[in-house]
């Protein structure tokens, strides 16, 4: 399963990025610097999606005590941290030519930074317990508590005055021209598949690590 997903992901992502960076037209106000959108928007979307995924896993672990759900949280969190970092980094660089600043404490940027710190906090919390079952449970509770940050990130541009502009794509439509929207959607799908395949790898690693003394692992390896 993994090699196919990785292949689909990388191919789609490359089509989206090459189309976006080389073939899509220039933007009427930002010129060429807007081409960072094909990386920044997919990264920001998955920074939040991975957290939603982790919160569903956390609920399953707390209520039904599904062990695998906790393993998935632990394997998804580093990927979430990585992609949130990419979202923050690409946004910062994009801010230099367009806004004239690489960092402002505006509500959207700050709440995304908090999301990044949440991912690191979840990993640190889990790492600080020697009793792994207890670590799983406390980590799940922390994940659930952090869910409140997701609607704040989403709504920050409407609730407060920010340097960041409001959303371009919403359920009511998009304010991005189709010639730029198509490669953007393709990049989103491509990054999605790429991250799912990275998630498969990461969970394989964690499960092997955690269950290395079990009989089935010895047989599997």
């Amino acid at each position, binding site marked *: 399963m993994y090699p196919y997903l990785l292949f689909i992901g990388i191919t789609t992502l490359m089509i989206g990025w090459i189309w976006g960076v080389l073939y899509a037209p220039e933007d009427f106000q930002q010129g060429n610097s807007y081409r960072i959108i094909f990386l920044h928007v997919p990264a920001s979307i998955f920074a939040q999606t991975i957290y939603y995924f982790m919160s569903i896993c956390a609920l399953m672990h707390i209520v039904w005590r599904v062990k695998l759900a906790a393993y998935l949280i632990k394997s998804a969190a580093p990927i979430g941290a990585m992609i949130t970092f990419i979202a923050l980094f690409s946004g910062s660089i994009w801010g230099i030519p367009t806004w004239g600043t690489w960092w402002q404490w505006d509500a959207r940027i700050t709440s995304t930074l908090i999301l990044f710190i949440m991912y690191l906090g979840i990993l640190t919390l889990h790492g600080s317990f020697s009793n792994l079952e207890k670590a799983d449970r406390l980590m799940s509770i922390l994940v659930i*508590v952090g869910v409140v940050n997701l609607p704040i990130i989403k709504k920050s541009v409407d609730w407060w005055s920010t340097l960041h502009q409001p959303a371009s794509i919403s359920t009511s439509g998009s304010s991005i021209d189709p010639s730029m929207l198509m490669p953007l959607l393709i990049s989103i799908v491509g990054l999605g598949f790429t991250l799912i395949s990275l998630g498969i790898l990461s969970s394989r690693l964690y499960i092997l690590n955690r269950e290395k003394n079990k009989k089935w692992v010895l047989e599997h390896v």
Partner: protein
Amino acid sequence: MLQVRKNRLWKIFTIFLVSSGGVFLILFSLNSTLDLFYTPSEMLEADIKPEYRIKLGGMVKNGSIKRKGTATNFLVTDFVKEVPVTFNGVTPDLFKEDSGVVMLGYYLDGIFKAEEIFAKHDENYMPPELSFEEEKI
């Protein structure tokens, strides 16, 4: 559902409600502090002391930009009130009339002296040819 699972569900639901309630209370009490900038109306109402460095944001009024050497003078508006701004230095590429702007500086004697200017753009993305056609319509 088993009783013990129901209990766990209620417990985590309560933890979630209480923590989000707390976060939202904090947010509501900090509401205006979380704004990145004052709008012209808010700034005029707030009676800012001249020694405080503040952020002021709004739209650059159409036809108001006047450049003299390295100095730029313009009016920033929120379509209710407007404030004259003076700035010495290089403005960002996206700084133009009828476009968003956020400035860091001091308000004294009815003029906002900007030390730094950031451009705020909108959420529309389109090729330049299309934006010309839109203007014609």
